């Protein structure tokens, strides 16, 4: 029981970094970004490519950073590049938002396969973020069980705090304005196209970072895993945001993290109650639907009373 919850939290939090990316594209930019299904495995592909390349670490100022840590910023950069390309296809070549994401997603399928070298690349025999000499020396005895969760929590927290801080900067405010009120951006003499490209870059960077963590956590890269990522992210964002709408003190990013964990919880419940495999997706959909309807209901009722 405890380890089910542990698993739900671990996986939910890894996916929550991806959901933060979807939060930027869907909730802030109002951009249905299909790139996600390609950039999530892209992060994993880059990670396993680096880890199986034989490079064990990179020296920075005399300090050797192991490749599993280098993989995280690397995945972010490569994912951001994919986001920039989607943005350029949309903004500069005037391709519709959905289509430009689909173009990039399709291209990434081949790129991921080329980068990883195979559709299934295991990294069981290598150190990773969660299993390395440092972790095993710091966490001993009972703490061992929670080491993975703590590391994930730490990474998610850093991502969340940086994203929160960024959204409060000038550039972040412009980003938020593009989705809500594009004219406002233009009146500030800013190019809203460039702001969109920047938003897509950050979003896909986060998504690829999440993909990198996932590959390291499950110790295998699987090309097919990307399919459906966007749906998971959207569900997490919508569930998280609608559940916490009334609580102004809960930041949107926190809501998204909660949403992602709840989504994983729904799947665990469906499996746990012995649902047949064929029903699993339907049950997950039903649980999400119930949560959404319940949180929507209130809004309507409040409106009626008013």
């Amino acid at each position, binding site marked *: 029981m405890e380890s089910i919850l542990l698993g739900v939290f671990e996986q939910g939090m890894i996916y929550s970094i991806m959901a933060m990316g979807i939060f930027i594209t869907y909730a802030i930019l109002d951009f249905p970004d299909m790139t996600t299904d390609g950039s999530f495995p892209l992060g994993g592909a880059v990670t396993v490519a680096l880890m199986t390349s034989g490079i064990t670490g990179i020296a920075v100022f005399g300090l050797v950073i192991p490749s599993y840590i280098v993989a995280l910023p690397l995945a972010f950069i490569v994912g951001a590049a994919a986001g920039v390309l989607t943005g350029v296809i949309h903004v500069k070549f005037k391709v519709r938002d959905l289509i430009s994401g689909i173009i990039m997603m399709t291209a990434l399928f081949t790129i991921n396969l080329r980068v990883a070298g195979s559709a299934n690349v*295991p990294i069981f025999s290598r150190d990773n973020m969660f299993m390395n000499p440092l972790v095993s020396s710091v966490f001993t005895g009972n703490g061992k069980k929670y080491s993975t969760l703590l590391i994930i929590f730490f990474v998610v927290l850093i991502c969340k705090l940086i994203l929160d801080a960024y959204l409060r900067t000038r550039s972040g405010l412009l980003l938020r304005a593009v989705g809500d009120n594009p004219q406002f951006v233009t009146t500030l003499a800013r190019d809203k196209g460039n702001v969109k490209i920047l938003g897509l870059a950050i979003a896909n960077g986060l998504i690829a970072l999440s993909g990198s963590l996932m590959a390291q956590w499950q110790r295998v890269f699987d090309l097919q895993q990307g399919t459906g990522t966007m749906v998971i992210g959207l569900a997490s964002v919508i569930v998280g945001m609608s559940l916490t709408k009334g609580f102004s003190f809960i930041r949107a990013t926190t809501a998204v993290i909660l949403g992602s964990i709840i989504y994983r919880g729904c799947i*665990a419940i469906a499996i746990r109650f012995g649902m047949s495999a064929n029903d699993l*997706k339907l049950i997950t959909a039903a649980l999400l639907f119930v949560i959404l309807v319940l949180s929507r209901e209130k809004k309507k009722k*409040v409106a009626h009373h008013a």
Partner: protein
Amino acid sequence: MMKKGLRFLSIGICVVLMIGLIGGCVQKATETPIPPTEEPVVEVSPEAEAAPVTEEAAAAEQASAEKVYTVGINQFAEHGSLDNCREGFIEGLAAKGLIEGQNLKIDYQNAQTDIGIANQIAQIFVSNKVDLICGIATPSAQASYNAASKANIPVIYTAVTSPEAAELVKPDGTNPGMITGTSDLLPAKAQLEMIREVLPEAKKIGILYTTSEANSKPMIELYEKLAPEYGFELVIKGISTGADIPTAADTVLNEVDCMTNLLDNTVVNSLPTILDKANAKKIPVFGSEIEQVRIGCLAAEGINYLELGRTTGEMAADVLLGNAKAEDLKFQTIEESNLYLNEKVAKELGITIPEALLSRAVETFQD
């Protein structure tokens, strides 16, 4: 105020759902789990019945009074071969005296080709403290190993084409931990020999495969290595989705004397399309397992997945009963293959199948 109260209600419902999750586990632990819906009672195969009751089995029956073993089956997808693996696995356990419903509980879960789900299934097995996890197909085997390695639960895999490539075996041939199982690498040698016997004049064999299917890669390498020995030249075309198959099939069929299949899921799912086009050109298509011959391939040297599962089940029983340790057992490959023929297809193509093959075929389809 009202609004907030209702928000609390919905968050409360989420909490209830989470508690439901916990409740579900407790319930699982105390109640007898529901057996797989397809077959409530395991039918013991003739082979299993014929197997002599070994001392181990007798010992197991004695032990059954005290100990009920729980085995979690983490299956990656739902299709004929993998289902046969699972049925064989349960039969193999029964052959060694571990009978479902008596001294064995089976918790069967299917990941529906999603490795994320396979991960969650494996974690739930670990938290239920099953005695052994059986991973069917590569991603499920990997997910099971990842979850179980932290909890010292043995994992037995089956239908993994290349345990080396999946890193379930170390390069030196030893197991990386409490994990072992069986591989379903195709008997490519037997297949090429058989094609040579049926078509003495053939020079070029066409193969279609999906570039994103990990299991197809080691098979292609094997065929490339073996084909020259039998005087064949390979024409290999990679596809990325099922939609590419008609075009790819047309291209390949223009160049080759016959085609052969791997266990590539995308290609096998589109087999009727390929067969249609090949039949129009009178080009024979060879399959890789019985089901493909049934629907219209000329012949196949395939492994029997039921048998593969049985071998796996026997290994699992040895581990459960303490006769062997998973880390010491070497993974197994089924050496012999079974020949399947389709005489109706042979007639349509105007091919005479040599007597030697007809007499050795395990199953011959007439219509």
